[in-house]
C-alpha cells in the first residue's frame, strides 16, 4: 500500500501542463484559469434552472418530491426569520468542535506513540484497524442506549467516527519519515528526544494534517446522523422534524448548508496541506 502511494505521487505542476485527454489545443494558462471559474458557475446555473423548471412543470411522479431552488431558498429564509436555524447550528457546531478536539487531542499523541514504538503499535494496531474498517456509525444505537439521548452521545459518535483517520495518519507519518534523515540525525548524535522533536515530528506533520482533514468529513457526518437518529436539538434534529412532515424544501437546504460548511473547511485544510506538501516534496 505504501508503494502505491509513492508510485502515484504526481510531480509538481504536471497536472496542468499535460492533460491525459485528447491532444489539447495550445491554450494559454490564462484561458484555462478563466474556464476553471466560468464552467462550474455555468453548470451550476444550468443545474439550478433545470431543477426549478422541472419542479414547476407539475409532472407528478417522483418529480413532485424534488422540491425546488426557490422553495429551498425561501425555506432557508423562513428558518432564519423564525429563529429556528441559529440555535440548531450552534448546538451542532459545538458538538462537532468538542468531538473533533477530543479526536485530535487523543488521536495525534496515540498515533505518534504507535509510530514511534513498535511494541505499542503491535499491540494496538489490530483492534484499531478492525475499528477503522468497520462501519462505526453502526455503534450509534449502542451509544444511545449507554449514554442516553443528548449531546454526550453525539460527541461520542463524532469521536468514534473521526479519531481513526487521525490515529492512522499520525502513525503513518512517523513510520514513513525518510530513513536518511533519521540516520543523519543519529550520526550527528541526536538523542531520542531530539530525533522525535526535530526530525520525526516535523516529518509527520503533513500526514497528520491529511488525517485531520479526513476526520472533518467523518465528524460532520457523525454529528448529523447522530442528531438525525435520536436527538432533541441540532441541525440533524431539524432535518428529522421536517422529514417527518416530508417538507423536502427544508431538508434539501439544510443538507446543502452542512455540505457547504464541510466543503469550505475541507478546502481550507487542503490549502494548508498543499503548503506542507511542497515543502515535503523536496525531502
Amino acid at each position, binding site marked *: 500500500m505504501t508503494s502505491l502511494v509513492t508510485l502515484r505521487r504526481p510531480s509538481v505542476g504536471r497536472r496542468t501542463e499535460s492533460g491525459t485527454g485528447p491532444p489539447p489545443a495550445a491554450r494559454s494558462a490564462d484561458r484555462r484559469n478563466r474556464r476553471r471559474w466560468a464552467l462550474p458557475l455555468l453548470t451550476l446555473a444550468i443545474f439550478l434552472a433545470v431543477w426549478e423548471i422541472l419542479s414547476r412543470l407539475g409532472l407528478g411522479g417522483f418529480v413532485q418530491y424534488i422540491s425546488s431552488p426557490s422553495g429551498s431558498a425561501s425555506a432557508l429564509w423562513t428558518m432564519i426569520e423564525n429563529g429556528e436555524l441559529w440555535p440548531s447550528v450552534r448546538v451542532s457546531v459545538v458538538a462537532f468542535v468538542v468531538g473533533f478536539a477530543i479526536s485530535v487531542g487523543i488521536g495525534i499523541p496515540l498515533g505518534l506513540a504507535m509510530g514511534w514504538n513498535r511494541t505499542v503499535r*503491535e499491540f494496538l494496531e489490530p483492534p484499531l484497524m478492525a475499528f477503522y474498517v468497520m462501519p462505526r456509525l453502526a455503534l450509534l444505537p449502542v451509544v444511545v442506549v449507554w449514554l442516553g439521548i443528548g449531546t454526550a452521545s453525539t460527541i461520542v459518535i463524532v469521536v468514534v467516527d473521526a479519531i481513526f483517520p487521525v490515529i492512522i495518519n499520525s502513525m503513518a507519518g512517523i513510520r514513513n519519515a525518510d530513513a536518511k534523515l533519521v540516520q543523519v540525525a543519529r550520526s550527528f548524535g541526536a538523542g531520542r528526544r531530539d530525533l522525535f522533536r526535530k526530525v520525526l515530528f516535523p516529518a509527520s506533520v503533513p500526514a497528520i494534517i491529511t488525517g485531520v482533514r479526513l476526520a472533518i468529513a467523518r465528524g460532520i457526518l457523525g454529528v448529523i446522523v447522530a442528531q*438525525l437518529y435520536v436527538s432533541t436539538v441540532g441541525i440533524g434534529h431539524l432535518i428529522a422534524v421536517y422529514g417527518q412532515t416530508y417538507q423536502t424544501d427544508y431538508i434539501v437546504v439544510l443538507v446543502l448548508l452542512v455540505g457547504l460548511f464541510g466543503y469550505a473547511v475541507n478546502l481550507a485544510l487542503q490549502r494548508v496541506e498543499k503548503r506542507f506538501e511542497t515543502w515535503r516534496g523536496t525531502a
Partner: protein
Amino acid sequence: MSALRRTSLRPLLFGTISFAVLLLAWQLIVDLGLVDGFLVGSPTKVADALVDQVSSGVLFEHMKVSAYELAIGFGIATLLGVVGGVIMGWYDAINDAFDPFVWLGYASPLVALYPVFLLIFGLGAPTVIAIAVLLAVFPILINTRSGVREVDPKLIQAARSFGASDGQLFRKVVLPASMPMVMAGLRLGIGRALVGVVVGEFFVGDRGLGYSVAYYAGLLRTTDMILQVVVIGAIGVLLTQLLSMLERRIDSWRVEVST
C-alpha cells in the same frame, strides 16, 4: 532464518494477545460487577446470543437482506463511479464543469435526504440501496478520476510517439495504469456502502442487520444489539481485507512489469 520467522510471527502473536486482553477485560468488568452486564453484555453472553440466532436462522435472514442491498448498492456505485471518474479524468472540460458537484456530494451528509428517497422509493430495500449508492459513489469516482489523470506522462508520450490512437491509448495505457487507484477507490467505496446500508436501515429499513441493531436497541435487548454490531464489524473487516487482497494482486502485476 529464525530472525525472519520472529519478525513475521510477532505482529500476529501481539494482535491475538491484544484481542484476547480486550475480550478478557470486557468479561471481567462485567463479572466483577464494575459495569452493569445488562448495558454492555459480555463476550460469553454475546456468544450465546450468536448460537441462538444462528440456530434459529434469524441472523442469516437479516444478513441476506443487508448483503443484497450492499451488493446492488455497491454495484451501482461502482458502475457510476468508475464510468463518471473515467470521463471526468479524460476530459478536462467535463471535469471542470462537474467538479463542484462532486465535492459537494462528497462533503454533504446525503444520508439526511432519506425522507426524500422514502417518498420516491418507499420503505425498505430500494431506499436503503439509494443511500448506499450516494455514500459510496463519490470516493470511487474521485479515486478513478485521479487514477486516470495521474497516469505517468512518459507512458502516454511513448504510446503517442508510436502512433497510438485515443482509443488505444485509453485501453492499453490509461486504463491498466489507473487500476490501482480504482481499486483503492473500490476499497473505500465498499466501506462507505456498508455504512450506507447500516445507517439507511436504521432510518428506513424493514429488515437487515442495521435494522436489527436499532430494533434490539429499542427493546433494550443489549446483548442481541451488540451481537449485530459485532457481525457488522466482522463483515466490514472481511470485505475490506478481500478488496485489499485484490488490490495487492493488481499492484503486484505492476511491480513485476516495472522491475
